[in-house]
């Protein structure tokens, strides 16, 4: 124990502790700080402009702080869940619980859609059933820490949890269904011909300081990429917050307009955006009175299915299999949106 503690203090750990303290202090003082800044501005805090500015000044650092913390922690967690380890956890299992496992691993395994093909082949080659592989492929882009943090920061923990639960459901049941359809023969010929491989997985020894470095790198990489979208999203939110009358969108994206859910899903399929990029739109839709189910279905559809990813997957799947894949995922998302609007 002491030896471990010694090693911790020898590395750059004290710096991380200081950062943590600074983070907490900053986070706690955000609300009073924002009030203070607004009170110095030459605008009436009760006016539209005042409200919009207050919203922007408070929410921007809040979401950026939250995101940095979550991405840092996930960057560390990711070092344990390399694609190779995830594959060895899933290999040789049969449909069912393995789909639940695959969808959950989709959250913690680092994934970018350009890795979809090597990952897909690596899984299939190692004897991970096709349905299980699909569960992973559906969950990985859709349910991720960035989407969840942004939803939490901007719309609260209930919506974030709902997105998490429903996203996992779509991935689990979509994969199960695809697995039952015996689609192996619709893989591209060269993929079918790849010989099965015996796995040997040895986890590499990684020092904890290396994991911390991975976390910092993730923050630099991810937050460096998505801050623009967040600013945009909160800007849109701030504007709506102060100016647009409520229920502006209710008539054509509200609960009564049932057709808005399939429309939202259809529009979302070819669109390509990261979770961060779509947040401004969701923000706008929700604030203007669009139904929650419709907005979430739109977001899922944009993030989970996209034209570029399908073009990449076309290298291993036949057009027919891609069609089946899209239809099943889209139907799942559609169902989620419809049920949501019905229940809430």
């Amino acid at each position, binding site marked *: 124990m002491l030896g471990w503690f010694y090693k911790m203090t020898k590395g750059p750990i004290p710096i991380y502790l200081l950062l943590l303290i600074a983070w907490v202090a900053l986070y706690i003082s955000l609300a009073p700080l924002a009030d203070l800044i607004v009170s110095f501005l030459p605008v009436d805090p009760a006016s539209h402009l005042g409200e919009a500015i207050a919203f922007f000044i408070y929410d921007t650092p809040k979401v950026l702080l939250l995101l940095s913390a979550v991405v840092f922690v996930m960057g560390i967690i990711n070092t344990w869940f390399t694609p190779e380890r995830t594959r060895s956890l899933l290999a040789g299992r049969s449909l069912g619980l393995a789909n639940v496992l695959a969808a959950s691993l989709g959250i913690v395994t*680092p994934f970018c859609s*350009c890795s979809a093909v090597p990952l897909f082949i690596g899984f299939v080659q190692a004897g991970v059933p096709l349905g299980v592989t699909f569960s992973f492929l559906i969950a990985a882009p859709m349910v991720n820490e960035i989407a969840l943090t942004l939803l939490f920061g901007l719309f609260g923990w209930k919506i974030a949890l709902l997105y998490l639960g429903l996203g996992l459901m779509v991935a689990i049941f979509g994969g199960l269904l695809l697995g039952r359809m015996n689609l192996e023969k619709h893989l591209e010929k060269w993929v079918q011909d790849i010989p099965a491989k015996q796995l040997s997985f040895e986890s590499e020894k990684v020092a904890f300081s290396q994991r911390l470095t991975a976390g910092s790198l993730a923050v630099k990489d991810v937050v460096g990429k998505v801050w623009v979208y967040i600013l945009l999203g909160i800007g849109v939110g701030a504007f709506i917050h102060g100016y647009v009358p409520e229920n502006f969108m209710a008539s054509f994206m509200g609960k009564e307009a049932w057709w808005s859910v399939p429309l939202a899903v259809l529009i979302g399929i070819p669109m390509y955006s990261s979770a961060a990029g779509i947040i401004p739109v969701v923000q706008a839709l929700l604030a203007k009175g669009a139904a929650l189910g419709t907005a979430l279905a739109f977001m899922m559809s944009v993030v989970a299915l996209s034209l570029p990813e399908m073009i990449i997957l076309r290298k291993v799947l036949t057009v027919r299999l891609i069609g089946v894949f899209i239809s099943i995922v889209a139907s799942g998302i559609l169902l989620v949106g419809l049920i949501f609007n019905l229940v809430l």
Partner: protein
Amino acid sequence: MLRVKVLGGGCTNCKVTYRLIEELAQARGVAVQLEKVEDFQEIMAYDVMSTPCVVIDETVVHRGGLPSREQVESWLADR
């Protein structure tokens, strides 16, 4: 001559990785034969599951995600 391959389907990260190696090799005056491998059958021969990957003299030295500047420099310095 260092034989360096960047494996990846051609996404942004792969391109940035390629450019980073090109740039640092030039800056240090290390002679490299840099090659992009975008064909998935060829990529899979290296038994990798995430891209971009960097292969130096047929050994995979990096898999998945952007390599840091320091990493690239260490590959170039080792020779």
